[in-house]
């Protein structure tokens, strides 16, 4: 607009206020927000009144008080004399521990089963399908009860424990297994393992440069894997093969020595992995099928071998399809780990539940659970969005 005059003449006449769509929008929003806020105020007011009447304490001060309840298993030091805050921390580490392990194992199981679903072998295909159909269509809570019933209520006492592998025993006290004893050579073996990884990465870089210069290729994957396995093995042998296993022994009424996991943890992990694995199986299968057959044909026509086709053409495209839904499965596995409470594994929700029962401070307890899960969810989805942006196919 060049002048006041022109702008006036080109501005359309204002409608009556009640017919102005923009004004209406503002009014609707004010009305909606007012209703929501009004409802919230109503709830908060009632809560305050009720809390006051029932003499329930408010605020997070209780976190610094003594928890005075025991926790069955913990990754960090804990005793009933510790504070509620410490108890929550134990719950959180337990949740993260079982979720992280579950995610790794469910991914492995799901990927293998997803490939099995696409096998050219009829029997393999059908078995994988049976796995998916059975375990996807039974509620997770029931599966957890089943595994827990089997491991805790059906399993024999330590004296009659089931031996499922050499020196691995299952009893109603949990699963015990041998672990390697601490040894000064272990440090060197670990160092050799790291060196193997560094060398393998370096080799990969060097092979890439050599390829660019001469066209010659190396099976870097195999050589790298060899290095990562062989170097620690050499270090182990050089140290005089000092392998002493700490084997579980039956002493009196229980096992001592070795490593052990509780029936609750084992049941929860089994249930989460097997249940989530079915969903990952279907995602992996759909992802690979989503890469059109034409892509494989074009790669064939160019003379790429089947391994190269998979690695260079199919997988990079399938992963884009697979990773977002798999991430949401990771999220639901993490959320489902809260079912721990029904079989007594002390995860975050379970600890919070005990706390709420002892202190009566339900509002604070639930707020804490929500905050923790929201932080986990938002972190994972933020990472997901970054990934999606990085790999999105460029179009237009």
């Amino acid at each position: 607009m060049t002048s006041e005059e022109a702008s006036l003449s080109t501005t359309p006449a204002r409608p009556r206020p009640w017919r102005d769509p923009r004004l209406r929008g503002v009014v609707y929003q004010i009305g909606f927000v007012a209703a929501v806020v009004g409802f919230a105020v109503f709830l908060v007011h009632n809560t305050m009144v009720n809390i006051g009447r029932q003499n329930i304490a408010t605020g997070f001060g209780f976190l610094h008080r003594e928890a005075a309840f025991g926790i069955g298993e913990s990754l960090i030091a804990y005793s009933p004399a510790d504070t509620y805050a410490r108890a929550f921390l134990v719950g959180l580490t337990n949740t993260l521990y079982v979720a992280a392990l579950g995610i790794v194992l469910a991914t492995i199981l799901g990927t293998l089963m997803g490939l099995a679903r696409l096998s050219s072998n009829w029997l393999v295909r059908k078995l994988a399908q049976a796995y998916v159909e059975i375990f996807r269509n039974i509620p997770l809570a029931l599966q957890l009860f089943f595994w827990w019933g089997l491991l805790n209520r059906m399993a024999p006492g330590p004296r009659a424990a089931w031996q499922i592998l050499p020196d691995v025993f299952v009893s109603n006290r949990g699963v015990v297994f041998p672990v390697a004893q601490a040894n000064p050579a272990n440090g060197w073996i670990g160092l050799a393992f790291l060196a193997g990884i560094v060398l393998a990465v370096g080799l990969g870089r060097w092979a890439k440069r050599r390829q660019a210069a001469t066209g010659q290729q190396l099976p870097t994957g195999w050589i790298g894997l060899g290095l990562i396995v062989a170097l620690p093995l050499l270090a182990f042998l050089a140290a005089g093969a000092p392998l002493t296993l700490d084997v579980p022994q039956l002493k009196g009424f229980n096992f001592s020595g070795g490593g052990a996991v509780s029936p609750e943890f084992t049941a929860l992990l089994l249930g989460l992995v097997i249940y989530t694995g079915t969903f990952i199986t279907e995602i992996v299968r759909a992802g690979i099928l989503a890469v059109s057959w034409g892509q494989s044909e074009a790669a064939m026509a160019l003379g790429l071998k089947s391994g190269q086709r998979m690695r260079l053409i199919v997988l990079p495209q399938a992963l884009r399809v697979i990773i977002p839904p798999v991430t949401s499965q990771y999220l639901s596995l993490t959320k489902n780990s809260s079912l721990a409470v029904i079989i007594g594994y002390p995860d975050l929700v379970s600890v919070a539940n005990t706390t709420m029962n002892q202190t009566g401070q339900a509002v604070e307890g639930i707020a804490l659970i929500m905050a923790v899960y929201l932080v986990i969810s938002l972190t994972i989805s933020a990472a997901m969005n970054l990934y999606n942006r990085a790999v999105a196919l460029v179009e237009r």
Partner: protein
Amino acid sequence: MTDIANELPAPTRRSPTGVVRIVGWLRANLFSSVFNSILTLLCVVLLVVALRPMIRWAVIDAIWEAPNGAACHGGGACWAFIGEKFRFILFGFFPTEELWRPVVVVVIFLLMILAACARRTWGGRLAVLWVAGLAAVYLLMHGGILGLGTVETRLWSGLPLTLIIAIVGMVFAFPLAILLALGRRSRLPAVRAICVGYIELIRGVPLITFLFMASLMLPLFLPTGMTVDKLLRAQIAFILFAAAYLAEVIRGGLQAIPHSQTEAAEALGLRYWQRTRLIVLPQALALVIPPLVNTFIGIFKDTTLVIIISLFDLLGTAEAALSDVNWQGFYIEDYTVIASIYFCFCFFMSRYSQMLEREFNRGTRR
């Protein structure tokens, strides 16, 4: 969708017959290479190792009749336990003399589900049918009129309770979900923000939290002196929870409708609610029926969580059945039976959703 295996060029012979066909099939599907042959053999071994003891336990060594639990502990399954407890597992604490009522309720629910599966009934008639069905269910369960004795909700248990929580939850969550999905795509920023906040909050937190909330916090939320039935509280938590998940599915459908449809409706002079109701929603909802069914399966399975606020759904009654001192230790039998009930429902629904999906794909491809 076809298998990769089916799409690979496989040698086919000219109209083979009988034995030749079987041998050809075996070679192509089980023994096409050394690796495949080894896999096949491994699978057979695995099957034999796993199935033999299972069949021994479930059939050969099983005990079918016994006066009490002590007489029922042999090497195999104790199906007598199931015979003894089946009524309790299915219908829980509902008064025995009134047992026909929950039986009819389950039948009504099954008929409602079947009616919803027949595509011919989709529309207003189905809605009327469902409202009538739900009313009949409430009448039968609660009683109090027509000469039926009143049965308190704390006695509602077993399969009818599972179905009530799942189906009533779905029916009430659905309209709420539509509003949330529309709100999330609204042009008004305040409406959008509140809907996004609600959906993300609920989806980010485990269901258990909301059940705790319903049992511990809801009483605090209400004006002093007002109390709400425990079942109703759980039901509300379920509705609020399910709505967030359904809303995301519906939003997917809304996004798939091209903007040109809205524009065309606008050009015809339709207003927002007319456009939404007549043009956008019917198309969007039809698109997302298969994922809606899948979400419903998830919600159906999630009803088992009400056990933590001590409501006795099917899983709850199954657990309760285990605590009879006369019949102790029959976990596997008990879980197997209710697992098969859950499996039947979920498997049927997932097959149905796959069928719809295939049908829709054919429709769009044409």
